[in-house]
Every structure is written in C-alpha cells, then in structure tokens.
C-alpha cells in the first residue's frame, strides 16, 4: 500500500514567556491510502496541534509532510489554501455549530470550497457537485436551503462532512467529529463516516479523546502524550495488549470496563522546555525507573506493526506489576 500521507520528524514549538512549548515533538507517522488512523490522548497532549499542522492550517517548526509525493509541509500555511494541494487534505471540525458560517445556507457552505478550489468547473457543474456530495452524506435536498440554526446537530455534522468532501480530498482530518453530539446521533455519523471511507477509498486521521469511538472506526491507533507518540499499533492489538503503561491507564479509565491497572496519579509534566533525556511519562508512571529519568525511550518496534516508546513495556500478560 502506498502512503497517502507521510509525516516525518514533525515538530511544532510555541514560544512562551517561560520557554519553548513543545506541542508536537518529533512525530513520524504514515497513513496508507484508504486507511483510518486514530490519534488519541488527553487534552494538551498536542493531538489537535498535530492535526492542524498536518492539515496545513498552521506551520510546523521543522519536519516534513508529504502528500502523494508532494512536499506540502514546505508551503506556508497562509498560502496553502490557494494551491491545488488544499483539495487533497480537508478537515472536519469539532463543533458542527461553530464551524459553519451562520450566514450561509447549507448549500453555500458546501459550495464555498468548490468556488475557491475548482474554478475550472462551470457554475452548473459546481451546483451539481454540491447536490451529489450532499446526497452521499445523507442530506435531503430540502435541507440545503436552510441556515445552520435551522438544522439539528446531526444535520450540521453532515453539512460539515459534505463541505470537506466536496473537493474530493484523499485525506480527511477529523478533529473530534462526534464529541459534541448525543450518542444516538453519534452512532449515525460514525456509520456515515465508515460508509464514505469504504465507498470513496479516502484516508482518515481521526483525532479523538474517546477511545471507544476510535476502536470502532480506526484500523490503527496512535497514542500521544506530551507531544510524542508513545504507542502506535493496529486497533485490535492496542486494545487487547497495550504495551505502554499510559495506554493501559487510558484504556482502564474508560467507564463501563473492568479495571486491571492502578489509576494514574498526578498530572502531566510541563510541555515547556522538557528535558530531552527524561521520559515524558516518568513521575506519573507506575513502572518508572532510574533509566526513565536518564534516557528518553524511542518509538521502537515491539511486534509487526506495533511500536512502543517505553523502557518497561507491559509485555504479553498486559497485567501491570510494580517492578
């Protein structure tokens, strides 16, 4: 399988009064054509920043982003929207209400990216495309004349997805697409996303804090902690045999599941100017040792397709015993 998207050694640092905040710190990740990769982690771990850099909404500090052979990371974000590459990567935003222009009818929201990026199409062809993509997303034509405030949450989510799909992207970045929806509506949208991926063969980068949702719609999952990917594995493997103690703690915190590991204590250390030689999870980790405080672990292969950044991975038993 060829990669639809290649991210390598990506870094995004923000200057703050007290030093550089390492929001994304050396992330390497590749997404195959038609693949759905989940990106999970707690708030502040850098998953949204990573998504925004990859979606080319903001510039990276260093690193490469390649999409279909083109080095799109080198194009400044403020100019990216005017290039043809913009049509390849599209974003579905978190809050369907906040991310739609309240002054635009549903059809005009969906038409907007076509106007900007598909000037080659005739007016009529663009209108036809709007109807086509709306139908794909399950939006009845009668709703296309409505403004966002006249639509339900689920309908607004469909408009947001249709808008992203209008220009036929190869990659969709989904930033918490269902977190603002009720469970009954969430189920509808998750089914729609799975169906669209199967039908259109596009790739997803699915950013979410909800592990349960990720489990249902992703082929692989990347777990992020303080700017770094700490574990990357096929979904099934990650959920049945997590290797990183942080992943195990995250899984255990899901309500409605039997508890196998001790709860995490404390809060994440500061992402501002972190010591490069200390594991980011040290101090909060039940398995932490001297080694973790003198050398940061790399994301190393554990099993085929399964990588983990930990000096003391959980192994096959997946039961955590204090060392």
């Amino acid at each position, binding site marked *: 399988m060829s990669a639809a998207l290649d991210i390598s050694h990506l870094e995004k640092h923000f200057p703050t009064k007290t030093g550089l905040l390492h929001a994304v710190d050396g992330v390497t990740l590749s997404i195959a054509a038609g693949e759905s990769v989940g990106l999970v982690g707690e708030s502040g771990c850098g998953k949204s920043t990573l998504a925004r850099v990859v979606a080319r909404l903001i510039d990276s500090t260093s690193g490469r982003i390649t999409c279909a052979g083109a080095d799109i990371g080198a194009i400044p974000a403020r100019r990216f929207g005017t290039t043809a590459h913009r049509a390849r990567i599209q974003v579905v935003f978190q809050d369907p209400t906040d991310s739609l222009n309240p002054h635009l009818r549903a059809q005009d929201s969906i038409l907007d990216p076509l106007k900007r990026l598909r000037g080659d199409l005739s007016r009529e062809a663009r209108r036809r495309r709007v109807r086509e993509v709306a139908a794909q997303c399950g939006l009845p034509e009668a709703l296309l004349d409505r403004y966002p405030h006249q639509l339900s949450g689920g309908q607004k989510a469909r408009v947001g997805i249709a808008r992203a799909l209008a220009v036929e992207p190869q990659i969709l970045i989904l930033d918490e697409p269902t977190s603002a929806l009720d469970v009954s509506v969430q189920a509808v949208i998750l089914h729609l996303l799975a169906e669209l991926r199967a039908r259109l063969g596009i790739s997803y980068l699915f950013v979410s804090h909800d592990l349960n949702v990720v489990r249902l719609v992703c082929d692989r999952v990347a777990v992020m902690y303080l700017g770094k990917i700490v574990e990357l594995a096929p979904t099934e493997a990650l959920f049945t045999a997590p290797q990183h103690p942080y992943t195990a703690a995250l899984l255990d915190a899901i*309500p409605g599941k039997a508890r196998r590991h001790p709860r995490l204590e404390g809060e994440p250390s500061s992402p501002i100017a972190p010591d490069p030689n200390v594991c980011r999870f040290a101090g909060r980790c039940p398995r932490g040792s001297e080694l973790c405080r003198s050398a940061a672990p790399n994301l190393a292969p554990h099993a085929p397709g399964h990588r983990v950044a930990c000096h003391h991975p959980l192994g096959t038993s997946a039961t955590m015993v204090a060392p």
Partner: protein
Amino acid sequence: MSAPLLDVQNLSVRFRTRDGIVHALDRVGFSIERRESLALVGESGSGKSVSAFAVMGLLGPAAEVTASRIALDDTDLTGGDPAALQRVRGARVAMVFQNARAALNPIRTIGRQLMDVITRHHGIKGPAARNAALDALAQVRIPDPAGRFEAYPFEISGGMCQRVMIAIALACQPELLIADEPTTGLDVTTQAAIMDLIDALADARGMATLLITHDLGLARDHCGRIAVMHAGHIVETGQTEALFAAPAHPYTAGLIAATPTEVSSLAALSPIEGGLPDLRQALPPCRFSARCARKSKVCGEAPLPRTALSDSHVVACHHPAVLTKTRALA
C-alpha cells in the same frame, strides 16, 4: 422500610418562552435511599438537569414547577418555600455542577470560597474556618492544600477545579450530593479519578448521590440504580445490572446499542431513529412513540402505564420487552 432520603412524586415543569410553553418535565417521580447512588441518564434535552434544579428550587421565574410531593427525609419541600430550601441547600443537599471552572467565582481564591461556605453554614470564622477549609482541600486529595489555598480558579487545572467544587459541596457534610455531569469536559483519566473520589467520599460518609450523566458507561460503573429519561419522562428505572441485562423500554435498549462502550463492532452500533419531540407541541401520552419500532395505536391514545417488572424495575411502556427477553439474550 423506612422513608427514602429524597422522595419526588409527580414533578412537572413548564417553561414559558416566547415560542410557547415548553413541557420540560411531565409527572416525573424518583426516590433515593440513604447511602444509595442513583443515576439519571438521557440525551441532552431529556430533562435530567431540570429535574435536579427543580428539586433544589434553582429554576428561574420562567419555570412553573408543580409536584405532589418533594421531601427530603421528613422535611417537606413540595411548595418550594424559599426559607426551607435555603436551609437545605448546601447544608443537607449539595450540588456539583458541570464545568467547574465556570461555576467557581473567578475573582476569589479557592480557599476563600471554601471558607464562605463553612462560615455560612457552620458559623465558624477566621483561623478555625481556614483550618476546616484546608481539611476539606486535603480530603479531595489536592496536593499541597496550603499552597493551593491562595490560588484562583484560572491558576489550576480543570480536574483540580472540579476537586475544589467537590470540597465546597462536601464541606457541610450533606446527606445527598447531586452531581450534574461532574466530569463532562474532563479527560478520561481525570474523569476516572474524580468519580473514584466521589465514590470514596460518599462511601466514607454514608452520603447518597444523584449522578446526572449522558454517559451510560459512567452510570453503570458508579451507580447501583439507573433512571432513564426521555423528553421529560422517566421511561425506565431499575437496578443497574438488571437494566443492562434486560432493558425493557425500547429507548433504554436503543441507548445501550448506541453507546460505543457497550458494543463490539461498528456494525453492532445502532442509532436511534429520529430526535427528541418538540416539547412545545401537544404530545401523545408516550413521547417516544414517534421514534419507536414497537409502537401501536394504543401508544398514542391510552395513558402511559407504569409496569413493575420486579420490586425495583419499573417501565413506562405499553409494549415492554419482557416477553421477548429470552429471545434477545439467545
């Protein structure tokens, strides 16, 4: 059996709005025993929070509240007498709200806010109140209570804010804690820690809890009994395990099937058709009937029956899934 700690019967709430009268709650009834934990579960707009706010007398003047009985132990709160509610709120029944940072006063230190409550209800002042506040902070396991005492809400994390609010709620040893979506907006690991804390403190003090949540998994983990709400009705009440093993109301079954935690694959995740009905319109006796696969003529005509499937399992449905239960499990 002794009387329940909180008893609510036939609670109805209507809101006067510019677009007409919203029938937010329709003859809702529930009770909580001492030391018990009850969850009110439902989608947004189902009336979970309104139920709690109505009991506590926290709804504004646009709300018209009627009930045949609201009683805390032997204190009658049915008429919504402000003086009686004032004595109960904070002291005997405390509330923890969603989004703790917004619920706390942004321009007073967290220690000062704790002292306010202690002074108001226990009449202690000065160093004694300060010590009590420090104790309360330590009980919710805030590291370095003395250091955090002078912090403002914006200086601490969301999880810490929620701990502070729990400390404030528990400062007066209430008999009942109402937690309204206490972990919405928090990370799963923080959510787990906060819920563990509430469980542990409730256990240690023999306090009852009413957990309001949209998350069935959370309710399953932390509550012994669950009441499911839909469009201002309580459609089913039962012991947690019984409810999950054999949901009798089609809405309960639908909610379980739509919850990602409860299913093994996307194929098994099934949406609930339709949305909540418009509560401003005249509604059929069963407010779920428009979304229901099992509906028949009787659902739109006859008053909603309340059927007891066991001592603790009650369902409000003309066609509960009792007879099909064995087939569903097979």
